[in-house]
């Protein structure tokens, strides 16, 4: 059973179609990257999944049942892009309060907050106020309050912004652990290298529509352009073959694109014939960043407002 199924979700504003017929599914324990340029409709989509907005049309199925915001938001942890906490409230009280709002009893909340604070070495912060914390510390606190109640679905919007590498890794590890324990994670960011590293599945959204959906490897293979790198002892003097074209030469490393109708074996065959010593040979898959740019390029970064008919 899928943790979350989104079917033909639509949300139209008067000035634009924020979400226009988006469907996807999310399995338990998977880490799901929700990508898209600014203003693509990610936030609106997330707000519908978290029950903040009602969809105009379409269906959300949570754990096999029609999404019921009143009941199901207790099982969803949401860390929005714009992080926010009560500035004047003590950190311990704040974490407990937010956990209680997610349906934990006071005793439960206290216990879990303590556990997490120990895990993140935040025990000494308990009586401090949020306004006394640095941005990175606030981020950590925000993450703790989001995952405190072991939600079935965790939505993280830019969770690493403003964090140093040590704290980023700390949170990354926790994300993996939560996924292993069965939480599904929706991870929204513009940082493609993080997506490649963390996510097993991605959806790319542009102008309110889904333009790409699949596992990270599948997507990369879908967009591969038969580009290979070959390392040689010495560069052959002139290369003239119908099998491939050299795109780039870096020392003894050549980057080449195999022409239609030929196979990697034909490349090796060619160099062996040339008596060249081959050190390495591997395929270069496009990075998600390349795919992203390729798909989104040409569409204006900020959407023009369109009038819904």
């Amino acid at each position: 059973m899928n943790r979350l199924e989104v079917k033909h979700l639509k949300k139209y504003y008067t000035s634009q179609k924020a979400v226009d017929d988006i469907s996807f599914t999310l399995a338990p324990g998977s880490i799901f990257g929700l990508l898209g340029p600014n203003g693509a409709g990610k936030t609106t989509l997330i707000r519908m999944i978290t029950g903040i907005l009602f969809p105009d049309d379409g269906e959300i199925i949570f754990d096999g049942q029609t999404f019921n915001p009143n009941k199901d938001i207790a099982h969803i942890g949401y860390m929005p892009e714009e992080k926010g906490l009560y500035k004047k409230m003590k950190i311990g009280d704040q974490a407990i309060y937010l956990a209680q709002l997610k349906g934990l009893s006071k005793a439960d909340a206290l216990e879990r907050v303590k556990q997490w604070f120990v895990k993140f070495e935040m025990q000494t912060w308990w009586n401090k106020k949020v306004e006394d914390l640095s941005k990175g510390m606030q981020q950590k606190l925000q993450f703790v309050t989001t995952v405190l109640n072991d939600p079935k679905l965790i939505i993280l919007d830019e969770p690493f912004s403003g964090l140093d590498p040590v704290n980023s890794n700390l949170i990354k590890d926790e994300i993996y652990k939560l996924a292993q324990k069965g939480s599904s994670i929706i991870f929204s960011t513009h940082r493609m290298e993080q997506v490649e590293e963390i996510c097993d599945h991605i959806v790319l959204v542009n102008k309110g529509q889904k333009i790409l959906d699949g596992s990270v490897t599948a997507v990369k293979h879908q967009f591969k352009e038969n580009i290979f790198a070959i390392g040689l002892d010495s560069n052959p003097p002139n290369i003239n073959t119908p099998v491939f074209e050299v795109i780039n030469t870096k020392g003894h490393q050549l980057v080449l694109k195999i022409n239609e109708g030929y196979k990697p074996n034909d490349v090796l065959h060619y160099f062996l014939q040339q008596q060249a010593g081959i050190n390495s040979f591997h395929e270069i898959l496009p990075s998600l960043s390349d795919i992203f740019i390729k798909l989104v390029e040409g569409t204006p970064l900020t959407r023009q407002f369109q009038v819904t008919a």
Partner: protein
Amino acid sequence: MNKILLVIQREYLVRVQKKSFLLTTIGVPLIIIVFYAIMIAIGASGGHEKSKIAVIDEANLFAGGMEKAKSDPSEYVFLNNVSPDSLKVKYKKLGYDYFLYIPPVDILQNANSIELYSTSTVAVAQKSRIEKAINNAIELKRLQSANLSREQYRAIKSDVSIQNITGKQQKKGIAVVASVVAFVCGMLIYIIMLIYGTMVMRGVMEEKISRIAEVMVSSVRPFQLMMGKIIGIGAVGLTQFSIWIILIIGLRFILSAFIPAFDLSALPQGAAATADTSDLQTALRVGLDSIPIGMISFCFIFYFLGGYLLYASLFAAIGSVVSDDQNEAQQMVFPVMMPIVLGFVIMTKAAAEPDSPLVIFGSIFPLTSPVVMVGRIMYDVPISQLIISMLLLVLSVLFFVWLSAKIYRTGILMYGKKVSWKEMIKWAFRRS
């Protein structure tokens, strides 16, 4: 439902635990008590100061002897061998506070030529004491010229004070007491709506500016968040008022044990020393007794709750649409403040003309009724008007809470955009 309680609890505790809450809660009654004490001190010193008055009585009005009231502590010194003109200049140097000059005219015909010299304006109480002494003397002279004795005069003189009977229950309406109580109640509601309404607005703005609103509404319904805040802050207000009332009563009780003058009679005595104190005391007591406490309390609580809920929800809606720009907040708040202030203005008219069309309208129109009706309630409001007013208020509270909740749920998640009134109305009436 449990969540709304959590929100209420937080909103309440966060504010009650603040230092500023403690400061205002204890500070305000202290200021009131100090103010009260100063007023009494002034009243008392004005009433019991022994002033020395030089008198030149060229009309021989007093015939050298002064028949002064027992409560008049002033010392009158009659001078004969001094010219009025020289005394006008040097009475102060000779140790007199005032100089009373009665010129050599027929005082029975022309009593307005009497002059009182002082360095600064004479206190009202002092002036009226001197006037009373002169009036007594003139009366006596006139009686003598008509060959009447004091006793005969007293038998003739009529001294009526009308008993004002109002309403069906034939209760004695003592207008002054009633109007003061009504005014204070209306004023309280006015202050509560303004202070705690804007407090709600600032709380909503804080949530919006610190961007916690989005986190919150992913665990609580926006309506719960809004109502939790409104109720929590309302409870803070009630707590503060309760503490104030207890402190003021308690402090007065303690002070009156030390300073005998510090009881209810002290103030009227100081303010109107000529009036008979015991009369005023009984009037006050009768006045207070004649107020239907149960009825007033009920109306006060009803209009307090209604007015607060109505305006707090409007303030919450305003707070949700403004960005962190203070000027913008002020602009948006203005139309909400207007009817509150208008209500207060109408309420001040209620004492003079409780049945004028403006006051009747103000006490029924739900945006002004919480202030105006409470200010008018002492003047026997027809029960039909009261019912219509209450009904309209309940309906308006429901309507405005609904309207504000709709604006709030959209506004609180909008950033960086100035929201127009038109848009707000659009949000309110579109389906979620």
